[in-house]
């Protein structure tokens, strides 16, 4: 499968992964829509990301531990 050509089989595979039951008409529609959207997002290939680190979240916070004291109600 080339990146911009989506087949019905691809849609069926993705729908199975996503646990979505689609009827025949919905599979055709979804195949067409997936193809359009993948064609659009393919423009990201043209962006030079050499040496760029991915942003995995919007904040640099990491999980913190609170003191191990019984709390009836979190503040």
């Amino acid at each position, binding site marked *: 499968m080339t990146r911009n050509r989506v087949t019905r089989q691809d849609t069926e595979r993705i729908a199975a*992964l996503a646990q979505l039951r689609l009827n025949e008409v919905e599979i055709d529609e979804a195949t067409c829509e997936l193809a359009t959207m993948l064609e659009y997002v393919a423009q990201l290939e043209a962006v030079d990301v050499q040496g760029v680190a991915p942003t995995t979240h919007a904040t640099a916070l990491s999980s913190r531990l609170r003191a191990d004291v019984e709390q009836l109600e979190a503040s």
Partner: protein
Amino acid sequence: MTEASPWTLSELNAALAARRLSSVEATRWALSRVDATAMLGAYLHVDFDGALAQARASDERRARNDALGPLDGVPVGLKDNILVEGLPATCGSKMLQDYVAPYDASVVRRLKGAGAVILGKHNLDEFAMGSSNEHSAFGCVRNPWDTTRVPGGSSGGSAVAVATGTVVGALGTDTGGSVRQPAAFCGIVGLKPTYGRVSRHGVAAFASSLDQVGPMGRSVRDVATLLAIVAGHDARDATCAERAVPDYHVDLEAGAKGLRLGVPREYLAVEVAGDVRKAFEATLACYERVGATLVDISLPHTSAVIATYQVIATAEASSNLARYDGVRYGLRRDPGAGLHEMYRATRGEGFGREVRRRILLGTFVLSAGYHEAYYQRAQKVRSLVRRDFDEAFAQVDAVATPTTPSTAFPLGAKVDDPMGMYLTDLFTVGANLAGIPALSVPCGFDRQGLPMGLQLVGPAWSEARLLGLGRAYEREHAWHARRPSL
């Protein structure tokens, strides 16, 4: 009460404090407005008895001189993806049609703690996915300035509820512009705070690295008041920042003198409606008159923001919405052919077309063989979008743009054109990708009488500055005081 009655939160609070008006009177008036505007479809649930009970309790507090602050006795509403204990929380989805929230979202606890009267739950695009409020399982919402047009989305019901006087303020959620775009389309003020400024606990997740709860109101001051109440650390949301909340009112009237406003040339290179462009230019001229300096800046990755957003938001959505499987929440459809068929039948029937579309794209970009090419690449481009803003804020205090490339479009115009719909978020998604705050303020009406919005984007934690800048414009042009004739 009449049309001359208090319109903004600060006016209503003054009337309540001076006992010119009781909260029960204000709430009855609000409920009568809900009835009078029912054809707009803004409400999914009205808590008639609960609201009046809260109003009576507020009047008793005021009678004892025991008011809880500026929100005590003030009718507010919530987008229906924010939980209020004992009230429905449908998220605009058939999947959660009969779901009743078992607890309050942290922002709702804060509103209740401030004495707010919670009037009801507002219509939205299903699971907050959409830009027109046409993707609700419970019907579309209409724009009060022209009922043949969309109110924007996904917080469309909340924007209409505020614009038509059914509530004085509301909380929406903003993942790619869902507070700011409907605010602009309906002529009200809307803020997306810095990621981590407001707790997301008790808010149905769409895209967890982008979602923020945002206040919507009739004036910049009202939005500052709502933000002051809901902002701040919450131990129940691990991404909510442990950072002091500043006084959002102290510099509200400080003006724009000496501030540097960046105008990104890439935003003006795209197709922007003539009236929107003119209004934006007039707004910039106004800022110059009141002492701000305009600076031509560049945000070079602007053309890639929608693609980046589509990959990241749908990937996160496909993961977040996996929880709706017929086991733990809401709808269950069991054809009697085993667990997986129950999942598939439930999800196939429970989700609407737009939500399915996004789950499929999100699942695709995360699937084996494509994860690196799409998802990881989008995360890298996201870093570049953030860097663009960082570099801009080294030169300027805030960035000014139109909130949307056009005014409200007709109902049905884009519903069969998902890509066209996504492109309406071109000016708003950048702030979500960068995790920074952005404010939309009314900046005029086009020739068809439709509201337009000015967007002010600032560095992380600069909400006070953005509110001051918004107020500096609002002082010169009181567009926000106009009301639709409904």
